[in-house]
C-alpha cells in the first residue's frame, strides 16, 4: 500500500483509533461494566421469577446495549476536535465521509463488539431460553452498527455545542425506536417459535441504507460543527 492512497489512509486511521482505544483499555471496559450492572438491577427491581425474566430478557438486553452505546458515543469526535486532529482529517485528500466511516468502524469494534460478546451472558442471567441466543446475537450484530452510525451523525451535530450528554440522549433515542422495535421483535418472535427472519431483514435493510447515508450525513454535520 503506497502511503496516501485510499486503502492506506483507511488502514492508518483505523489502526490509530484502535491503538488509542487499546492504550485506554479501561474505557473499553466501562460500557460492558455498565451493561452488567444494569442487568443485575432488573431481577432486584421486578423479582427473580424465571418466567417473568424470560419474558422481558430480550427487550431489556437491547435497551441496555442501546444505552451503553449511547454513553460511549459522546467522545467519538470530541477528542479529534479538541486536539486539532480533525483539521488533519478534513484537509486530507480522502473524502471525509470515508474517514468518518473508518472512525465509526473503529468505534463499533471497541464499544459494541465487547457488548455483543457479553450480551448472551446477560441474557442468560435473565433466563432467556438458549434456543433464542443465536437470534439475539444476529440481531445485535445488525443493530449495533446501525445504532453507531445513527449516533455518529447526532454526535457530529452536537460536537460544536456546549453541553451534549443529555441532549444526545434526547436526540438519539427517538431515532432508535425502529431499531429497538425490529431487534426486540425478532427475538420475541424467536422465543415464541414464530418466524423471525422478516424483522431481521428489515434491520439488514436499515443497516445497508445507513452504511451509505450515515457517513455522508456525518461528514456534513462535522463541517457544520467545525464552522465556528
Amino acid at each position, binding site marked *: 500500500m503506497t502511503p496516501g492512497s485510499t486503502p492506506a489512509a483507511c488502514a492508518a486511521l483505523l489502526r490509530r483509533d484502535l491503538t488509542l482505544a487499546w492504550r485506554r483499555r479501561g474505557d473499553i471496559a466501562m460500557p460492558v461494566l455498565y451493561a452488567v450492572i444494569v442487568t443485575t438491577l432488573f431481577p432486584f427491581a421486578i423479582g427473580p421469577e424465571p418466567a417473568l425474566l424470560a419474558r422481558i430478557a430480550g427487550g431489556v438486553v437491547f435497551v441496555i446495549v442501546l444505552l451503553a452505546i449511547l454513553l460511549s458515543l459522546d467522545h467519538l469526535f470530541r477528542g479529534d476536535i479538541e486536539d486539532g486532529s480533525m483539521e488533519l482529517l478534513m484537509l486530507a485528500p480522502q473524502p471525509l465521509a470515508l474517514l468518518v466511516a473508518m472512525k465509526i468502524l473503529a468505534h463499533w469494534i471497541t464499544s459494541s463488539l465487547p457488548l455483543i460478546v457479553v450480551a448472551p451472558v446477560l441474557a442468560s442471567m435473565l433466563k432467556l431460553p438458549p434456543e433464542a441466543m443465536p437470534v439475539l446475537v444476529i440481531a445485535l450484530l445488525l443493530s449495533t452498527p446501525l445504532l453507531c452510525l445513527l449516533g455518529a451523525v*447526532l454526535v457530529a451535530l452536537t460536537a460544536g455545542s456546549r453541553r451534549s450528554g443529555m441532549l444526545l440522549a*434526547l436526540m438519539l433515542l427517538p431515532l432508535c425506536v425502529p431499531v429497538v422495535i425490529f431487534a426486540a421483535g425478532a427475538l420475541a418472535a424467536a422465543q415464541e417459535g414464530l418466524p423471525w427472519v422478516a424483522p431481521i431483514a428489515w434491520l439488514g435493510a436499515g443497516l445497508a441504507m445507513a452504511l451509505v447515508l450515515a457517513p455522508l450525513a456525518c461528514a456534513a454535520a462535522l463541517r457544520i460543527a467545525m464552522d465556528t
Partner: protein
Amino acid sequence: MANWVPLWLHRLGSPPVFYRFAGAVRPWAFGLALLLGAVALYGGLVVAPADYQQGDAYRIIFIHVPSAWMSLFIYGVMAVAAFIGLVWRIKIAEVVAMESAPVGAAFTLITLVTGSLWGKPMWGTWWTWDARLTSELVLLFIYLGIVGLYHSFEDRRQGARAAAFLVLVGAVNVPIVHFSVNWWNTLHQGSTIRLLGPSHIEASMLWPLLTMMLATKCYYIASLFARVRADLIASEGGKAWVRDIALGQPGNDPA
C-alpha cells in the same frame, strides 16, 4: 413568466423586509384564527349532533384532529425551510425552521393530551400503546431534540444550521418510525379500537373540523411570525434597522 414572484421572495429574504411583512400579517392571522376558532367551536360543540356510539365525548376531535394534522404539517414546513436554509444559506429560512419547532411541539403536546383525555372514556385508560399515539409521542421527542440542539450552541447561526440538519435527519426517520410502530402494533395486538373512521363522517361534523383546521393554520402563522420577529430583533441586534425600530423611527419604507 411572472418575474415578480421570485423577486418578491428574494426581497422577503431580507430580515427588515420580512420583519415588516410579518408585523403586517400577524394581527390579521391572529384575528382570523380567533374568529375561525370560535366559529368552529360553536359548530363543533353546539351545532353538530352527538355521536350515536360515543355521545358527547367524541367532540374532543375538534381539537385533537386539527392539532394532529398541524403537528405533521409544521414538521413539513420546518423540513422545507431547513432544507432551503441549509442549501442556500438563507437566514430567514433558518429562523422560520427554528421558530416553527416550539409551535409544532406545542401542537404535538396538545394532540397527546387530548388523545389521552379522549382515551379515558373510550378505552377506559389514559394511555394506550396505540400506534398513532406512540408515533406522536416520538414526534414530540424529535421536536424537543431540535429545540434543545438549537439552544445548546453559543452561536445562533451555527445552532440553527445544526438543528436544521437534525430536522432533515428526522424527516427521513419519522416515516420509518411510523412504519415500525405500526408493525410493532400488529405484532403486539392490544386492545386497540379504531375510533375515527373519516370516510363516513357526517357533514355537520366535517365543517367544524375543517374550519378548526384553518383556524390552527392561521394561529400557526400568527405565532410563527411573532416568534420570528422576536428572533430577528435578538439576532440582528446591532444592525441599523433594529436601532431605527428601537429608537421609534419609522423605517424608510412604510410597507
